[in-house]
C-alpha cells in the first residue's frame, strides 16, 4: 500500500539553469544496488518473453499449427514439454495471467521534472508510466508566467499540497509534478529554487506571500 519512494535530484549545470527531478525510479549507486538493478531488468525481460511465448504457443497449439521456432531455439524435448504445459492450462487462466505479467513488466516508475531557465521560462516534463509511450513536456515562456505558488487541494480522501504555475490567458493552473505530488518539503525546495532562477535574487520578493487561489481537483 505504501507509495513508492520518491527522490529529488537538483541539477544546476549553469547559474541560470536549474532542473528539479522527482522520480520513483531507483537510481542505483552502490555495487550491490547496481547488481540488483540489472538483475531486475534481466528478470523483467525473461518474464516478458516467457509470457509472450506462452501466449503464442497456446495460440499455435490451439489452431494446430507447428511451433517450429521453439524447436529451433529450445530443441525437441523442450518444445514438447512447453506444448504440454501450455495445453494443460486453460485460456481463461493463461490469458489474464500473461497479460498481468506483461503489464507489470512494461511498467516503470514516474519521472517528473521542472526545468527552470532564467529569463526564458519553465519546462515541465512528465515521463510515461510504461516503456511503450513517450513523455509529455510543456514549455511556458517567462512572459506567460504570472505566478508560481504552492497550495492545497482535496484529492481523494486527503488534502495534498501542489505546486502550480499560473499561465496568462488560461483558466486552469498548470500543476507541476501532477502524478507524483511530492511532499511539502520537496515542493518548497523546488518553489524557492524556481523562483530564484526565474526572478533572481533571494527567491523573489513574494516569498512570504500566501496565495488565495484554490483548485479543488488536481
Amino acid at each position, binding site marked *: *500500500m*505504501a*507509495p513508492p519512494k520518491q527522490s529529488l535530484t537538483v541539477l544546476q549545470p549553469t547559474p541560470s539553469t536549474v532542473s528539479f527531478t522527482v522520480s520513483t525510479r531507483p537510481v542505483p549507486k552502490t555495487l550491490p544496488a547496481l547488481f540488483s538493478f540489472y538483475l531486475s531488468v534481466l528478470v523483467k525481460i525473461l518474464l516478458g518473453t516467457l509470457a509472450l511465448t506462452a501466449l503464442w504457443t497456446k495460440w499455435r497449439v490451439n489452431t494446430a499449427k507447428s511451433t517450429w521456432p521453439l524447436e529451433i531455439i529450445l530443441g525437441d524435448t523442450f518444445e514438447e514439454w512447453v506444448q504440454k504445459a501450455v495445453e494443460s492450462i486453460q485460456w481463461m487462466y493463461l490469458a489474464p495471467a500473461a497479460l498481468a505479467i506483461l503489464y507489470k513488466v512494461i511498467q516503470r516508475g514516474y519521472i517528473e521534472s521542472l526545468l527552470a531557465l532564467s529569463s526564458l521560462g519553465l519546462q515541465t516534463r512528465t515521463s510515461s508510466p510504461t516503456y511503450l509511450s513517450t513523455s509529455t513536456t510543456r514549455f511556458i515562456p517567462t512572459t506567460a508566467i504570472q505566478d508560481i505558488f504552492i*497550495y*492545497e*487541494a*482535496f484529492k481523494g*480522501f*486527503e*488534502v*495534498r*499540497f501542489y505546486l502550480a504555475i499560473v499561465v496568462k490567458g488560461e483558466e486552469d493552473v498548470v500543476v507541476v509534478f501532477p502524478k507524483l505530488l511530492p*511532499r*511539502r*518539503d520537496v515542493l518548497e525546495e523546488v518553489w524557492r529554487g524556481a523562483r530564484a532562477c526565474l526572478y533572481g535574487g533571494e527567491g523573489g520578493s513574494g516569498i*512570504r506571500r*500566501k496565495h*488565495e487561489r*484554490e*483548485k*479543488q481537483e488536481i
Partner: protein
Amino acid sequence: MPYNIAMICDFFFPQPGGVESHIYQLSSKLIDRGHKVIIITHAYAGRTGIRYLTNGLKVYHVPFFVIYRETTFPTVFSFFPVFRNIVIREQIEIVHGHASLSNLCIEAILHARTMGLRTVFTDHSLFGFADAGSILTNKLLKFALSDIDHVICVSHTCKENTVLRASLDPLMVSVIPNAVVAENFRPLSNDSHNPRHRDAPGPPPRIGPHDTITIVVISRLFYNKGTDLLIAALPRILALHPNVRFIIAGSGPKAIDLEQMIERNVLQERVDLLGPVRHDEVRDVMVRGHIYLHPSLTEAFGTVIVEAASCGLYVVCTRVGGIPEVLPRHMTEFAAPEEDDIVAATGRAIAALRVGKVRTELFHNQVKQMYSWTDVAQRTERVYDGISGATSHDQFYQGAGAGGAWSATRGRAGVQSFALIERLKRYYGCGIWAGKLFCLCAIVDYLIYVVLEIFAPRSRIDLARNWPKKEFKDEKGRDVGSSKDDSGISRKRSARRREKRDEREESQESLI
C-alpha cells in the same frame, strides 16, 4: 496556552445566517487572542477547496453531497478519512461543532472522540419534544452529546432545552450568549460623520404627546415568529394610539395575511411594508423608529432585539424562550404571547416614551458593554481551558462536584476518558435499541480509525504551515498572559474594563 481549534458546521458563508456569522465572529476573535482556528464546512456552489478569510482564518470546503437546506447527507463514516487528514495536518486539539441540525458537526464529534480529541458543541436553537422530527433530532443529538467534553448554549433557556433533549448533566453545559457588532448598529445621533444621514434629524430628546411614534418590526413572517399575533394586535394598537405608525420589514408565508389585514382595516397610510431587507440594511430601517416590537413565539436568544436596543430603540417583546435573559429591564417591556397583553405592553411603552422616562440614547453604549464578541471569545476560551485541563476541575466547575471521588461531570460520563470501553458505556445508556446501535457505530468508527492508521499512516501526511501570527501589542499580550491565573468571572470583568480603557485611550489619541 494557545489551542488549535477546528470549528465544524454545515452552515457557513456564503450562506447568510445567524449561526454562520456567530462562527465567523467567534473564530476571528479567537484568532486575535492567539489561537489557531480553522473552519470545516461543506462545499458550496462556487466556493470549493480551501480558502483563507481575513486574518488567516482557513476554511475547508469539503466536497460533499448536500441533501436538504444545505445539510449534508448523513453517511456517518464517509467523512472520517478526510476529517482525520485535516485534523492531523492542522494539528487540531479541540473540535468545536455548531448547530444541532448540522450533520457534519455531529459526525465530526464522534470521529474526534475516536481520535482522542477534546470536543465542544454549541447549540443555537430550541426544539420541541413532541413531533416525530424533533424526536429523531433529539435522539441523534443524544448520540452525539453522550460522549462530549462540554456543551455551550446561547441562553439559559436554550441550556434547559438542550439538557432535557440530550439528557446531559447541567454542569457540563455553559451559557455563552451571542453578541452583536455594536459598531454596525449605531443610533442615528452617533452617525453624524456619515454624510448620507447628515440632514436626517436625530430623534428628539423628548417626544411630545402629539409627535408620531414609529414602531418597527423586522422579522421573517413565519408562524413561530408570531406574525399572527402581530396581525391581531396591530389594528388595536393603531386604534388606541392615533399618532403611531408601523414599519414592517421581512418576508415569509404570512406576508399575505398581513397585507389582507392592512387592506381590511384601511391602514395603508399608517403601516409601511418594506418587504425583505438585507442584514446590512437592517440598521437603516431600525433607526427610523422609536419602538421595536418582537412578537416571537419561540426564540433561543433573539439577536435582533439586541440589535434594536443597540440602535436606540425601546423594545417590546414576548416573554418566551431566552428573550427575558437578553436585555435588562429598563430597555424592554415584556408581554405574554397573547393579543391583549401585547396591546397593553405596547401602550405602556408608548406612554413611557412620551413621558420621557426611557433614556434610549444611552442604550447603544450599554449594549456595547454587555455584548461583545471579544467577551464571547474569552468565555469560550475558558471552556477550552477547562476541558483541556489548563484550568483545574474545581476551578472550572466552581467547586461543584469537588475533585477526587464522584463528581457530576466526570461521574456521569467520565468525560475525560477516551478509553473505548468507557465511551461504549456512555453510548449504551442512550436507549434500549438506540444504545446498541450507537455502540455499534462507535465500534465501527474505531475500527475504521485503526484501519486508517495502518493504511494512511500519520507519517505520510504533511503538516500544514500556520498563518504567520501578528505581533500583539504589549498591553494585549499582558492581558492574555496575566488573565490566565485569575478565576473566571472576575477575570472577565477586569478584562472587559481594561479593553474599555484601551478604547478610550485610542479615541483620545485620535482626537489629538
